């Protein structure tokens, strides 16, 4: 806890060094006169570089996550086990498995994402770093975006790495592997972004876990539908471009709009 707090302080110091003028429209390389005038009038509220904060948060969160690797591994193992259970449940016939493979992989990915989702804000909320983040003199949305990016890097990238293994286990025809991988690549940012909204709303609650899936899974229905539709289109020999484009659109939409909702949610939760 103290470690993270001092880290946050160090961050703010580092940012304070790279102060840049705001709203006046002057660039960092702009006239010195304007800069000094601005800093004089706004001595108390120095503005820090947003990009720097963004990078700092990403770097810090990655470092923190690397210290608790089991947290990262557990959802992945859960995913593998669920995928293993499916053939045992529905029977090992390769035709059945191949047909349901995309759906099973996506549903399992959604469920395993729910497992580790709370980590986006939970630890920061407990040790107070989240409050610090809201108080940083940059747009909160940006810090939130950094959190979302980190979550995506930590949860989606491993899933993307083991996707071929999952497809292999479920006998997905090889021609659909690429599309499945693509749907996961552009669909998982939606998971992280929508997940951040849900976690922001429930982080202050003691038992947010079950509630989180109730809030999020209905919102993720379109993602599941279009992702599996893309794979099925490929299997049927049709171009999967339509659903892929739609997933891309949702992805852009959710990544850009979610930080606004997350900010509002965090304000409620931190209070």
């Amino acid at each position, binding site marked *: 806890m103290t470690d993270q707090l001092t880290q946050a302080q160090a961050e703010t110091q580092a940012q304070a060094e790279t102060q840049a003028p705001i709203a006046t429209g002057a660039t960092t390389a702009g006239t010195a006169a304007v800069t000094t005038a601005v800093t004089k009038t706004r001595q108390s509220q120095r503005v820090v570089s947003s990009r720097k904060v963004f990078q700092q948060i990403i770097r810090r969160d990655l470092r923190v996550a690397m210290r608790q690797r089991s947290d990262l591994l557990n959802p992945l193992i859960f995913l593998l086990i669920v995928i293993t259970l499916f053939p045992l449940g529905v029977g090992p016939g390769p035709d059945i498995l191949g047909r349901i493979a995309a759906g099973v992989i996506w549903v399992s990915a959604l469920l395993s994402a729910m497992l580790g989702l709370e980590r986006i804000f939970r630890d920061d909320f407990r040790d107070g770093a989240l409050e610090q983040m809201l108080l940083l003199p940059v747009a909160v949305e940006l810090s939130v975006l950094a959190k979302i990016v980190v979550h995506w890097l930590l949860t989606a990238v491993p899933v993307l790495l083991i996707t071929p293994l999952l497809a292999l286990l479920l006998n997905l025809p090889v021609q659909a592997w690429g599309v499945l991988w693509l749907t996961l690549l552009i669909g998982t940012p939606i998971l992280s972004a929508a997940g951040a909204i849900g976690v922001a709303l429930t982080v202050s609650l003691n038992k947010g876990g079950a509630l989180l899936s109730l809030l999020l899974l209905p919102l993720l229905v379109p993602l599941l*539908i279009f992702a599996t539709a893309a794979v099925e289109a490929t299997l049927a020999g049709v171009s999967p471009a339509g659903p892929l484009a739609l997933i891309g659109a949702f992805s852009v939409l959710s990544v850009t709009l979610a930080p606004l909702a997350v900010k509002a949610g965090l304000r409620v939760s931190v209070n």
Partner: protein
Amino acid sequence: MWRWLHPYAKPEATFHLVQKLLPWFLVPGIVLSVLGLVWGLAFAPPDYQQGESYRIIFVHVPAAMWSMGFYVAMAAAGLLALVWQIRTAELALLAIAPVGAVLTFISLFTGALWGQPMWGTWWVWDARLTAQLILLFLYLGVMALYVAFEDERAGAKAASILALVGVINIPIIHYSVYWWNTLHQQSTVTRAITRLEAPSIAPEMLYPLLVNIVAMMLISAVLVMLRLNNEILRREIHRPWALKYLGIAVSTPAATTGKE
């Protein structure tokens, strides 16, 4: 408009307004319900394909329509609560959610009862039914989130945010579910449903349907108003205005001495 709307941010003003409006919703609501039900059940002609069973439409369609409408109303209340911090809007959100959830449930329940004789199954993964089921989950999510918070105002804010996120998502969910439904190999059962929806409805059936739609809106609105006023009362029950309204005499020290 704001000058007109602003006083109702105060729960007391809203309470009195709702109390005044209540009979104007309740009486036409009951009259139209009775009219609509009698008309729909006894006087509307039977359907040439479905016989008398189609009469379920007179509760099914209004419930399905207003389940959506009340979600939008709830999200609007959420917006008011979030942006302008209006206390009454938080309470309105809380009052609307259960009524909307019940409407959604009614549409699912009557849908199942209609499906059983027509298509031989209680449930088909038809686009409308599926979308409606997801809507029910959204309502439940909003209600569960509100209840989960210990601090009521924080709960209301969180529920407002969720309702707004949901309202952005509802059209997407709807289109995706429809698309999913047309994409998949439809069972004959599902195809039968989509086909039945196609023919335009005859006026002798349409008019009672419209009456029922209006009636259900009015009745649901009455329920929302009752709940809203209960919520207001619950929070303001010890305020002088509420006690005065309820006819509870509160004695000031001076009054008691005068009595003795």
